[in-house]
């Protein structure tokens, strides 16, 4: 079933079911299109790896000293890689008019953008949560901290994807919007960075990561409920 046929389900089933069905189709479409160009999925991850490589070269190769800064380095690199990947979120769909079709389709644009953000997280945030511990290990953290790092980066990257979706929607029509997108998204992402780095630091020290992890989860849930609404409003304004 194509996306067009899926969107016209509205007349046949209840509106809520049709919105979820349309969202599922958009998610499947985005994932399918992304896997046709695997290079684009790998680019943010390679960027992440390069950034984490720069720090030992610039600061010191001593593992004992790198261990101290490892949580912050991993999180800043994850943040920058996420920002880089955000440009791919709406770019193709806004260029070929699919985003306008979504806005005009009569389906809930909030749910469709939520599906797009979910696909984006599956393609960038989830892989980051897998290779972040590898980078941290390279910076000298103990192996026992790996589960904590995976948990904090996984939850934090959900929040980052959602906040970034708002920023990307706001800069939709702007040319060369990369730096502007970073300027707008980074202030909103700072609490995520603070709690994420705190959770990673505690994982490295061996203490419980519960407190910052719950706060990260709270930000993620707040984003899950409100960010797609704000992004949909921003997309509608940008498409006028």
């Amino acid at each position, binding site marked *: 079933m194509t996306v067009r046929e899926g969107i016209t389900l509205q007349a046949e089933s209840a509106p809520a079911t049709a919105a979820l069905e349309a969202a599922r189709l958009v998610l499947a479409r985005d994932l399918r299109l992304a896997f046709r160009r695997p290079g684009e999925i790998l680019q943010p991850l390679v960027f992440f790896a390069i950034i984490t490589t720069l720090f030992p070269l610039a600061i010191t190769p001593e593992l004992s000293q790198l261990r101290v800064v490892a949580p912050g380095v991993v999180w800043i690199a994850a943040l920058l890689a996420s920002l880089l990947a955000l440009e791919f979120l709406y770019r193709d769909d806004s260029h070929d008019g699919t985003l306008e079709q979504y806005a005009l389709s009569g389906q809930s644009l909030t749910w469709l953008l939520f599906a797009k953000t979910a696909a984006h997280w599956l393609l960038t945030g989830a892989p980051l949560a897998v290779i972040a511990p590898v980078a941290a290990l390279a910076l000298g953290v103990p192996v026992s901290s790996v589960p904590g790092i995976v948990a904090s980066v996984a939850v934090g990257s959900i929040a980052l994807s959602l906040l970034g979706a708002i920023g990307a929607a706001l800069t939709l029509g702007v040319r060369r919007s990369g730096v502007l997108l970073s300027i707008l998204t980074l*202030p909103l992402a700072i609490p995520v960075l603070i709690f994420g780095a705190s959770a990673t630091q505690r994982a490295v020290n061996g203490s419980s990561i519960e407190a910052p992890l719950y706060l990260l989860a709270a930000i993620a849930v707040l984003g899950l409920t409100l960010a797609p609404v704000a992004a949909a409003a921003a997309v509608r304004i940008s498409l006028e």
Partner: protein
Amino acid sequence: MAWTWFHRLGSPPYVYSLAARLTPWFAWPAAALILYGSYLGLAIAPEDYQQGDSYRIMYVHVPSAWMSLMVYTTMAIAAAVGLIWRMKVAHAVAASCAALGATFTFCTLVTGSIWGAPTWGTYWEWDPRLTFQLVLLFQFLGYSALRAAIEDPQRADRVTAVLAVVGVVNVPIIHYSVEWWNSLHQTASVMKLGKPSMPPEMLVPLLVMALGFTFLFAALLLTRLRAEILSRERAASWIRDVVNA
């Protein structure tokens, strides 16, 4: 009937003349209050038992900080009004707030830095409140950058309005940051439940300066608003009547 005053505020020529009439009512009291508050703060208020006379920069630092938060909130409310009721004038108010808010935030950071040097021993500290105040400055600058980057003025208004509303979450974070984190910055002495923890001889100049800064913001906002309206409505016919009058 009851809401006519609100709908009249949607008319640029009405707001332009209203702003022109109101500005002196804010500007002169602002000057008087700030002069009187400075005199009270510098000459009359007693020395602090720990900091001596160097605490007196509080009389500029704290009102600037309160104003920076108030200006962002004003900007967010004006942006929300513009988005919901589609009033051009509300968007003009939000646009006028941006540069004023950035200046108040910058003054807060600079005066705080000057105060920190003798008392904390450092010009800067990566303390939660200072960091989030710096983030507020970036938010004001980001708002202006986004507005400048979009060519269509109506789209620019509405997109920056969404940004302003989304960013208002930083304002309570700044205020409560000294309670939620172990902060070097002191906790709230005035804006809290219960009595202020400052003696009245020190508190009264602070309140006078705060009121003076509020009136100053109102006067500056009204002046910038008039300039903003003139710039937006430059093709309209009522402008010619105003200019020729």
